[in-house]
């Protein structure tokens, strides 16, 4: 056996140290394309994963607890401790006037003033960051009134909001917004979207209208849920319209039995009542539907179906899918980098499959968990092929 080894040792023609050395020097003198070192590659991937994780966490910051919490569940003491600043940190947005001139990254969620204001009445349009999707904070609110519109509320301070809303008067008397109460509403609105993304809070004296919005991330369907006790709210029968993502959300005051209602409608001028919700003044009651002007209770399934029918707007859907495809593309890039080392191929496949699956099926939140996990695995994993070992490991 040793003879075999000895024979193997002496195989081939010995070129000699000087020949090998000279050849190596010649090769080194030639320009070469070097592959990125494994450590740099890992750092790049880890950096990408960290950024993706943070982005996903930011986008998925709407927790279920926020969705289900109503203003009545909150402690008044806790309510008063909410931070006052209205600026949304980290967002460098500017005030805008017409909706067509929006800061980069800010997109109108609705189809525009027409969709938001089918009756020529005062209506609100909410703006948000299209890249963050529906779970991101509402960044702006715009009020449309008959004869024109006023925009305000984008990343503004309290004083700015108050100053800009002071001109609002009861021009059409549709909704009795005094300058003060209007300012208060807007201030509260912005405040709540800042402190609790996804949750809007209107306060009118002792009555509170909390409008929460949430999204089924996977399906990309917006859902507006209202909790209100507006018994004393000075709403007219025409109500005040809120521009929803997929259509106009009309908050109508009194039904036949004197109860307040939250009504879903489809967007556009020819809106129709899709569904509405009966509010008994204390808490949200079961979903109802309106048929021929009458209030009729419907099952949760019917309510959900009505909401699903509305669906996301084309723009919203396109933006969501563009972002998703972008992330899938980045995952593919990581995959391509990793498969260069055979030892990492299974890991690369895993990353690619999970990233794609998470985005396509479950949305951003699961993606954030996945990226956190894959980053840890990636940093802890050791490729089998080491190339040149670090000098420190040599005795």
């Amino acid at each position: 056996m040793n003879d075999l080894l000895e024979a193997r040792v002496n195989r081939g023609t010995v070129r000699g140290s000087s020949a090998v050395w000279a050849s190596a020097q010649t090769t080194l003198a030639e320009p070469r394309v070097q592959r990125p070192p494994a450590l740099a590659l890992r750092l790049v991937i880890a950096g990408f994963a960290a950024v993706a994780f943070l982005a996903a966490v930011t986008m998925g910051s709407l927790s279920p607890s926020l969705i289900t919490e109503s203003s009545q569940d909150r402690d008044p003491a806790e309510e008063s401790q909410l931070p006052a600043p209205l600026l949304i940190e980290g967002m460098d947005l500017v005030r805008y006037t017409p909706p067509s001139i929006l800061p980069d990254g800010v997109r109108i969620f609705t189809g525009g003033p027409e969709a938001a204001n089918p009756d020529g009445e005062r209506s609100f349009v909410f703006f948000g960051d299209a890249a963050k999707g529906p779970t991101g904070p509402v960044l702006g609110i715009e009020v449309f009134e008959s004869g024109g519109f006023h925009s305000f509320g984008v990343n503004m301070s309290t004083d700015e909001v108050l100053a800009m809303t002071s001109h609002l008067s009861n021009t059409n008397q549709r909704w009795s917004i005094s300058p003060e109460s209007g300012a208060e509403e807007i201030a509260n609105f912005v405040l709540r979207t800042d402190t609790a993304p996804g949750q809007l809070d209107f306060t009118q004296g002792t009555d509170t209208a909390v409008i929460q919005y949430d999204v089924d991330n996977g399906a990309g369907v917006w859902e507006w849920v209202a909790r209100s006790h507006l018994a004393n709210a000075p709403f007219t029968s025409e109500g005040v319209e809120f521009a929803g993502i997929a259509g106009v959300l009309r908050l109508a005051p009194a039904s036949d039995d004197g109860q307040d209602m939250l009504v879903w409608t489809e967007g556009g001028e020819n809106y129709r009542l899709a569904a509405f919700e009966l509010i008994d003044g204390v808490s949200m009651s079961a979903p109802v539907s309106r048929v021929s002007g009458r209030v009729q209770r419907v099952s949760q399934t019917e309510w959900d179906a009505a909401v699903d029918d509305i669906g996301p707007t084309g723009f919203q859907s396109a933006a969501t899918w563009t972002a998703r495809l972008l992330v899938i593309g980045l995952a593919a890039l990581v995959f391509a980098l990793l498969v260069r080392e055979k030892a990492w191929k299974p890991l690369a496949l895993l990353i690619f499959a999970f990233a794609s699956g998470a985005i396509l099926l479950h949305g951003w939140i699961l993606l954030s968990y996945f990226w956190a996990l894959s980053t840890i695995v990636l940093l802890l994993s050791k490729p089998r092929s080491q190339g040149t070992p670090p000098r420190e490991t040599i005795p």
Partner: protein
Amino acid sequence: MTDSDSRERQSYQTFDRIYPDLRRFAAVVADVDVDPDDLVHDALIQVLERVSIAELRDPDAYLRRVMLNLSIDNRRRRAVFRRIRPKLFSSGAHLDHYPSDLALLDNLDPTTRAVVFLADVSGLSAVVIGEQLGMADGTVRKRLSRGRQELRRLVDLPLQISKEK
């Protein structure tokens, strides 16, 4: 003479001193169709791209480990290539019609070959081999045992076949 010239001269002297051992090691860990000097050459480039040999504490061990890693890489690459382009490896044109016993060693993986060589030919202990190749003592012993066993089986195989005939 500048510092870099002096360092290069030192590096060469070091390399010249350890070259015979490196070549012997390369002849074992490289597959039989790979020229040992080619492996030494590639390892030398890998090292010189990063550091002067004169700066290494144990250049012999360092270069050995680089050669071993290169052999492992080379084997993997060839395996992948063989999977992708099987026809190139199934034509038989490249096969050695008079295979020597030297090729028997290729049935062992490069690391096991290195361990067996360092233990049985160079006479190093498991601890030293472990330090040189970056492995635990236990792993070295295990590889050594399995390697010897496998090698014995491979060497005895032709005898068994001839007896059966």
